């Protein structure tokens, strides 16, 4: 397990970087946080007042120490719009966002990996062309636009999807008892099938519109890596040893594909966490992204910065998870340390 510790230690510089940059953005850039915190109705005196209470009139190093101290206590400031501590707000909404992103990622992986494998075993076949078309299309479409297109097609034209008004039609259903905060999982735990169905119905469109964009890069890299693996010497050896096709494809080729795939996951996560904001906005999904957007509109400064910090930390942790996964798959990485 030594390598896990090594990876953990390796994230420390990233975390420090994240904290420093977040501090820099919120304290050292030319914008005036005091004016933001004071809100639109403030006058010069009240702004000065707030500047002093926030310590924004002190030298930057002093402010930094104070910032770190606040962070250590989980104090991200108070939201102007909700009046609650930002951390409380964020934690309350995080499960909804994680639920959406996880389903999107799950959808992407479940489709993309078989698709890439299939495309690689039948070059220039139908799936291969579909794979390439998807890559081109997903590079050109804005996520929010695809989300809206889906709403138009699947809600308005076809009537297959429910109205895109958030996580659950709360007029018809009441949310399941709180375990994880993800409605689908909570409904499953509670055994509340109607609510499970209803929340899944709400989830499908946003998850697919988000997942489509994660799908393309994963499928592309799977295809390329699978092609490389299939042409490699060790697959030739496996065939010369008379191993069954299934074993050659799954145990020999596919495991070697997982490593390149995990190396694009970082990019995919960056994309998912960013696009989450846009998709939540489109579908009225009450997660941290939608919270950040309303904070942006209300110039709710602390809320936005808290959101940025939380996403960055989440991203660092996700990358850590990917790293550890890669290490488990590939002994060479483990030995390189």
């Amino acid at each position, binding site marked *: 397990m030594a390598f896990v510790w090594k990876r953990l230690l390796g994230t420390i510089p990233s975390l420090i970087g994240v904290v420093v940059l977040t501090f820099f953005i919120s304290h050292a850039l030319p914008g005036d946080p005091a004016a933001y915190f004071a809100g639109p109705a403030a006058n010069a005196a009240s702004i000065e007042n707030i500047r002093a209470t926030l310590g924004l009139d002190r030298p930057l190093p002093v402010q930094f120490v104070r910032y770190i101290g606040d962070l250590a206590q989980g104090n991200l400031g108070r939201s102007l719009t909700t009046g609650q501590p930002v951390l409380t707000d964020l934690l309350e909404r995080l499960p909804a966002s994680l639920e959406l992103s996880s389903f999107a990622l799950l959808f992407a992986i479940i489709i993309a990996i078989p698709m890439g494998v299939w495309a690689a075993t039948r070059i220039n076949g139908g799936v291969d062309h579909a794979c390439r078309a998807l890559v081109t299309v997903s590079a050109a479409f804005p996520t929010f636009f695809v989300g809206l297109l889906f709403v138009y097609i699947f809600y308005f034209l076809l009537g297959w999807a429910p109205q895109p008004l958030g996580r659950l039609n709360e007029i018809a259903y009441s949310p399941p008892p709180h375990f994880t905060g993800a409605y689908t999982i909570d409904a499953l735990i509670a055994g509340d099938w109607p609510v499970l169905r209803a929340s899944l119905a709400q989830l499908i469109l946003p998850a697919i519109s988000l997942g489509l964009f994660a799908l393309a890069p994963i499928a592309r890299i799977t295809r390329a890596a699978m092609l490389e693996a299939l042409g490699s010497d*060790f697959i030739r050896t496996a065939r*010369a040893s008379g191993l069954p096709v299934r074993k050659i494809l799954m145990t020999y080729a596919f495991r070697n594909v997982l490593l390149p795939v995990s190396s694009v996951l970082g990019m995919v996560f960056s994309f998912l966490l960013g696009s989450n904001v846009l998709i939540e906005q489109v579908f009225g999904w009450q997660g941290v992204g939608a919270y950040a957007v309303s904070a942006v509109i209300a110039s709710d400064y602390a809320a936005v910065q808290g959101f940025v910090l939380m996403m960055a930390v989440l991203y660092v942790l996700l990358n850590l998870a990917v790293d550890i996964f890669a290490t488990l798959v590939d002994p060479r990485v483990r030995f390189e340390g």
Partner: protein
Amino acid sequence: MAQLEIDNLSVEFRTRHGVVRALDSVSLSVTRGEIVGVVGESGSGKSVTAYTVMGLNDEAARITQGNITMGGIDLLAARPEAMRELRGREMAMIFQSPRTALNPIRKIGKQIEDVLQEHAGLPSRDLKKAAIAALARVRIPDPERRAEAYPFELSGGMCQRVMIAMALACTPSVLIADEPTTGLDVTTQAVIMDLIRDMSRSTRMSTLLITHDLGLAGEYCDRIAVMHAGHIVEVAPTEEILDHPAHPYTRQLLAATPVPESRLDDLNSIPGHLPDLRGALPPCRFSGRCERRRPICDEAELPWRELSPAHVVRCRFPLS
């Protein structure tokens, strides 16, 4: 009947740039316990011969005529699934660059177990022990520990031993070694070759040794077949071919191999190039490079000459 019989085999590749006639009327046999060398320049068709025997040819390959039998089984008529079952059990192959020929992320013991599991019919609890025994048989020191290693932790020579252990795990009756020592240092080469020879003697395995290295073939083979541009041009017992080469090409090969260690591809002293295998080819594919060529060489069908029952040559005017 020989254990492995290749009879009048022709193979071509349909490519975007035309049909490559890679093998033409190739005949060769290997009896039990015998080591037959196949030598020739790069591109002469050595590997295609090997892959065709194993049933591992590229999809672009077409077998246009001929027969291959192994222990009486018609390999070209066998269904793919039957061929798969023969590979690894009855016939095995080892390759050059052993480090890339092993799965980089699977323990070598596991890789041998995979083969055993498929072909040896052992209960799964005995697999591990059998894999370790296979490693021990190729004289890998400390096989229990090595079984847990990944290929990148081993040297090239050690990886080639693992390859051999894997190939021989189910005691096949035919082994094809395609340049098994290319890229290894001279001492390791000798160790690997000694190992292959010992194995083939002790299990009476028929071995086809493909190599660039005539010196190496001379040292380890019972008989040698010389290939040129998809033709076998001469076959003879080793001593005889080294002392009395009959085909002009064989002589040039020998002349280009003054010391046992030197390899053909190091020496560009054979004049001319292999002919392009795509166009129309003369009956003797060597005629473009041959000093002894006469007009008739390009005209009539080329006969096989039998200099002695074991020494045949495909040349109209062989050296005596």
